């Protein structure tokens, strides 16, 4: 099937592949070990999926904030985002 109309680029393809792998991984994790709602530093009880969503949404805003505030390399924002996601998933 011709996918030219979607104007794919290598970075966006890798980005969506990561998201797809993450969702697949979460599905397998859920089947192997079903999630239990837990209360961490976030102000509400969350499941593992909730925490991933909050982590990803927060990461998007970290990247946008980084772009708006500094001219430094975007890898810095990615590093901060990874730490943020790990914190939310583990302690959120």
């Amino acid at each position: 099937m011709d996918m030219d109309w979607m104007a794919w680029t290598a970075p966006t393809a890798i980005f969506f592949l990561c998201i797809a792998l993450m969702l697949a991984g979460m599905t397998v994790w859920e089947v192997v070990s079903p999630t239990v709602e837990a209360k961490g530093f976030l102000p509400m009880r969350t499941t593992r999926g909730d925490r991933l969503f909050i982590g990803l949404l927060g990461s998007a805003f970290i990247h946008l904030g980084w772009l708006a505030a500094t001219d430094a390399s975007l890898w810095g924002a990615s590093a901060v985002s990874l730490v943020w996601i790990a914190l939310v998933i583990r302690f959120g």
Partner: protein
Amino acid sequence: MDKVQDNRAWFLIIPVFLIVAFSAVVPLMTVVNYSVQEIFGPGQTFFVGTEWFEAVLKDERLHDALVRQIIYSLAVLAIEIPLGILIALGMPGGRSAKTSLTLVLLALPLLIPFNVVGTIWQIFGRGDIGLLGATFRAIGIDYNYTNNSAHAWVTVLVMDVWHWTSLVALLCYAGLQSIPPAFYQAAKIDGASKWAVFRYIQLPKMRGVLIIAVLLRFMDSFMIYTEPFVLTGGGPGNSTTFLSQYLTQMAVGQFDIGKAAAFSIVYFLIVLLFSFIFYTIITRTGEGEKK
């Protein structure tokens, strides 16, 4: 008897999954692809990285439109939600001609297409031929939504309240109708005041529909385009130019597809964030009630 675990029911969501993928996920992925490229035409694309996002995030007009949009959406919620609840509380219950008539009257504004609503209010507000504009002039108020920002804002806001409060009222009414009479009888025996009945019976029972009402009204008002476009065209100046209109100018007017795509993603993330915050606050309030 042990509960039978059967995951085959998951197959039933495949049609929905396919429809959502086709109508939402694939277009969104395409927009993400566009947002990192300069688009000159079909097949003429050049990778520019995060350039468009930087341009959008540093765009003063966008900041102004965003502030305007947030104020507008919060004003819409602050007016339409309490007003909708009040109307629902005042509506006749049971099955009667009065109930049917009220429901039909309330549903009328919801049936009118968005561009027609804009046109109705455009004529309604005109000082020469419109009832509202002429009335204001007759009582000495120099009302003119085409050259006064405050008047334009109030008109756009009132138009939205007129168009959409019915939706909130109908949702709340459905919530109120689902309350069993036994609740009211118990409250009467306890000598509960009208406020106590509202606070401890009606409001908690309306929680589900209120979540839907707040989310729908927030998302709709945050993405409003047609009505202000027809009524004021975004003016006077840029005073009623909201995010959608600015986005359309960028994508269709200037054919700046890459920048408009980056703008769309930022816009989408803002809507997602606010919806998540509202949803969390409302569902948490409900958890408190249950405890």
